[in-house]
């Protein structure tokens, strides 16, 4: 980090969106101050820095806030472009494909996973969400084959944009399986993804940041209990 630069990240250890920013900063070897939010509350700094959505993560660089997780990742890639490999693919078409899948994962796939994490019973809605998550994993298995071009990551030789976009959810994917008591991952159906996930989770920039699945389950149960209590009142 160049002298005189001030870099803060507002976030929470359990948030997959915050994890994206931290992985990107690690990939570039950039130091920052991590300001951890208290679950269930929003700090004044957060509300001031992200008045539109009041959500984390927020990256504050020399006093200027940047919001929305994948926008933050692209910002980091742009500012520290000389430090470390490029996060976005260099070819415009590969970039478009990576961006397309990142949008799909956030807009379509993750909402289905959330339904499973929040599921109160093994009902029709949960069954439908399960089908959607599994179908999505199949699509991403095919996408991995095309994007990786035989290499270790979606981004090729190193962790890239789509690795970060998808990989951040891996802990919650496994936590969701435990919380709902249903199987989502299948080594036989998505062998490439399973191999990729192992490499992603053990990558230098990622390994110390990935939360333990049991900790996520505990966190998820805590949030759920809090929401149930609030609903009951």
């Amino acid at each position, binding site marked *: 980090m160049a002298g005189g630069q001030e870099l803060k990240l507002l976030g929470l250890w359990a948030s997959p969106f915050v994890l994206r920013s931290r992985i990107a900063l690690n990939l570039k070897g950039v130091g920052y101050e991590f300001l951890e939010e208290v679950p269930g509350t929003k700090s004044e700094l957060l509300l001031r820095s992200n008045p539109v959505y009041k959500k984390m993560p927020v990256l504050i660089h020399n006093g200027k806030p940047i919001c929305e997780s994948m926008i933050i990742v*692209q*910002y980091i890639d742009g500012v520290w472009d000389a430090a470390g490999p490029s996060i976005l693919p260099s070819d415009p078409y590969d970039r*478009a494909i990576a961006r397309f899948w990142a949008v799909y994962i956030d807009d379509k796939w993750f909402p289905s996973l959330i339904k499973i994490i929040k599921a109160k019973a093994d009902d029709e809605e949960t069954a439908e969400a399960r089908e959607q998550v599994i179908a999505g994993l199949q699509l991403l298995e095919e996408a991995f084959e095309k994007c990786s071009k035989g290499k270790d990551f979606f981004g090729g030789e190193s962790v890239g944009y789509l690795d970060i976009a998808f990989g951040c959810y891996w802990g919650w994917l496994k936590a969701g399986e435990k919380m709902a008591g249903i199987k989502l991952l299948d080594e036989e159906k998505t062998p490439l993804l399973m191999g990729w996930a192992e490499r992603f989770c053990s990558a230098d920039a990622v390994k110390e940041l990935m939360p333990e699945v049991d900790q996520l389950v505990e966190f998820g149960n805590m949030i759920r209990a809090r929401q149930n209590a609030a609903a009951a009142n």
Partner: protein
Amino acid sequence: MADKVILLSSWVSAFGLRVQIALAEKEVDYEFREENLFDKSPLLLELNPVHKKIPVLIHNGKPVCESSVIIQYIDEVWTNGPSLLPQDPLQRANARFWADFVDKMIYQCGSRVWKNKGDAQAAAKKELIGILKQLEGELGEKPFFGGETLGYVDIVLVPFSSWFYTYETFGGFSIEKECPKLLAWVRRCNERESVSKVLPDRHKVYERTCGLKKRLGLE
């Protein structure tokens, strides 16, 4: 080798129109193919199997989907024209943020204004006015969201202006009254041919929406 560019879209889709404006800004020659959204072409279904939606840009046979992704692709491939996204990383992040805001907010809120009645419609109307005011605030005193010239956010937002008359007529309010600076910005955008030649007539959009409401049984 000359570029072959095809756009699968619809004259009334705000998401497709923004791609048309971007292509016009870059002076890219392309073939426009109108899709019937109730009878989608085999090509569309083949090239966007995940969403089966327009717009789809086909560049030398390769498909690009998702309008915001397409515009960034156009900006990165055709570099001889004006830059649509800012060069500075912070300004670029800001442009992406507001374009994403437009995407998250306007279509779904505007749809609720023309699809609903009574309290639901009133709530949607209030929300839509709030969203437009937020955008007006972001525009500030600048001629365009992009600064002195038309940029990414302008291109992403301006097609919705063809829908303003529809929202106003169904919702019973005046966007000009609520957000006069935004309307001034719309007029400014229309001084550019890339915008004025592409945007559909607002009455045609309204008529089409009336027809759609009937078809969807929402009368």
